[in-house]
C-alpha cells in the first residue's frame, strides 16, 4: 500500500481510460500523456493498462508500506527517495517505509508514477481512470488528499537489474508547442481570412487549463467569420452552431477569440463551432502544454494524421523493446 502524506496539486489515478461511452456523454479520461504513462508501466514490468498516478504541476509526498519498484516519467520534476535525488525514466527500488517526494516542475505539466503491480483501485466501466468532474473511477472518484491509503497490486517477480529508457527515447517537452489538427466539422464558419488568422497566430496557453480543456489566448482581435443568417437553433453569436458532438481534441473558439482544445475529460457536445480536432498523435503533447507556453496550430489531412499515429505507435514499441537492463 501507499500512504499519501501530501497530495500534490492535482494527483489522480489514471490508466488507458474508458472508451466506448462517449455517446452517453462520458469522456474517456485516461492519462493526459499516454506515451509517458505507458513507458512508466513498461519500466516497472507491469502489464499494459495497470493504473498509475498522474501528477499535475506539483508532486505528492508518499510513503510505501512495502517494497516496490516505481518509475517516474513525463514532465521533468525532480524526484527524491528519502530526500535523496533519484532519476526519472528508470526503475527505482523502494523499501518498506521509504518516502517519495518531488521538487519544482522544470518542463511540461504532468508527470507519472508507475508502481509495480499498479494502483489497485476498483475498475469502473472497465477502467481505473479518475473522472473527477463526474466523480467516478480512480480513488473514490476524486483527486488524492492527505491520509488516503492507496492499494497496490501484487508485485510481480522483478528482473535482476533495473530497467531504463534509452536517452534517445526520452521525450523533450518544449515551451513552444506545435499541434497538428484536421480541419472540420465547422471550419466553414470562418472566412478564408479567418482560417489564415487561426493558422498564422502564435497562441499563449492561459492558466485556465485542466483535464477538460486548455484555453489559449492571443493579443489580436477576434477571427473573421463568414457573414449570414444563423440557422434556427443556433445562438446569435457568430461562433454558435446547432448543438453537435465535440470529439476529444476538438478546437472550439467561443466568439472567435480564445480557442479551447478539449482533452481527455472533454465536454462531449455543445453549441460552439469547432474549427477542427487535434490529431490523436498530438494529444499527449497537448497534455504537456505548459502554462504561458506558446502553441501554433498546423492543419493536416486525415492521411497525415493516420501516418503520425503510426509513427507514434512505432516510437513507443521501439522504446519499450529497447528498455535496457
Amino acid at each position, binding site marked *: 500500500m501507499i500512504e499519501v502524506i501530501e497530495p500534490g*496539486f*492535482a494527483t489522480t489515478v489514471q490508466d488507458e481510460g474508458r472508451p466506448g461511452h462517449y455517446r452517453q456523454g462520458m469522456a474517456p479520461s485516461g492519462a493526459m500523456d499516454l506515451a509517458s504513462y505507458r513507458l512508466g508501466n513498461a519500466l516497472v514490468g507491469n502489464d499494459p493498462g495497470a493504473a498509475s498516478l498522474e501528477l499535475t*504541476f*506539483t508532486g505528492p509526498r508518499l510513503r510505501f508500506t512495502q517494497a516496490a519498484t516505481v518509475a517516474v516519467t513525463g514532465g521533468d520534476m525532480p524526484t527524491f527517495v528519502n530526500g535523496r535525488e533519484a532519476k526519472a525514466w528508470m526503475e527505482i527500488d523502494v523499501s518498506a517505509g521509504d518516502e517519495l517526494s518531488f*521538487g*519544482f*516542475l*522544470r518542463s511540461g505539466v504532468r508527470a507519472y508514477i508507475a508502481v509495480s503491480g499498479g494502483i489497485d483501485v476498483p475498475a469502473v466501466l472497465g477502467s481505473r481512470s479518475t473522472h473527477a468532474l463526474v466523480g467516478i473511477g480512480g480513488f473514490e472518484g476524486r483527486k488524492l488528499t492527505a491520509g488516503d491509503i492507496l492499494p497496490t497490486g501484487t508485485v510481480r517477480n522483478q528482473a535482476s537489474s533495473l530497467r531504463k529508457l534509452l536517452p534517445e527515447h526520452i521525450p523533450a517537452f518544449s515551451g513552444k508547442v506545435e499541434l497538428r489538427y484536421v480541419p472540420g466539422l465547422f471550419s466553414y464558419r470562418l472566412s478564408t481570412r479567418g482560417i489564415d488568422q487561426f493558422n498564422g497566430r502564435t497562441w499563449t496557453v492561459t*492558466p*485556465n*487549463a*485542466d483535464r477538460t480543456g486548455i484555453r489559449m489566448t492571443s493579443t489580436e482581435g477576434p477571427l473573421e467569420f463568414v457573414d449570414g443568417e444563423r440557422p434556427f437553433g443556433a445562438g446569435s453569436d457568430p461562433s454558435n452552431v446547432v448543438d453537435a458532438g465535440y470529439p476529444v481534441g476538438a478546437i472550439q473558439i467561443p466568439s472567435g477569440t480564445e480557442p479551447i482544445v478539449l482533452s481527455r475529460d472533454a465536454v462531449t457536445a455543445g453549441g460552439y463551432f469547432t474549427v477542427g480536432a487535434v490529431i490523436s498523435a498530438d494529444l499527449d503533447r497537448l497534455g504537456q502544454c*505548459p*502554462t*504561458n507556453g506558446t502553441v501554433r496550430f498546423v492543419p493536416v489531412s486525415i492521411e497525415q494524421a493516420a501516418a503520425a499515429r503510426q509513427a507514434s505507435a512505432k516510437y513507443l514499441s521501439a522504446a519499450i523493446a529497447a528498455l535496457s537492463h
Partner: protein
Amino acid sequence: MNDVHQIKTGIPGTFYRKPSPSEPNFIEEGASVAVGATIGLVEIMKSFHPVTADRNGVLDRFLVEHESQVAPGQDIAEIRLVN
C-alpha cells in the same frame, strides 16, 4: 546561517497580492510574517491557491508584481530571517 530566504510558488499561474480586487494587500513590504501566513494567491485552473510563508521573519520585498504570471519554482518574495 543564511539570513535571507525566498518564498517560492510550486504552481504556475497569475499572482495576486490581495484576496480580492476591493480588499487591501495580504501583507506590505517591511511587515513581520510567521510560518503559514498567506502572502498572496496564485490563480490556476479557475481556482485560487495561497502562497504561504515557510519561515518566520520580516517580508523584505516582493520579487513579482501583482497580477503577473509566475512559473513553478519562481521566487515570490524575500524574507529576512529573525533569529
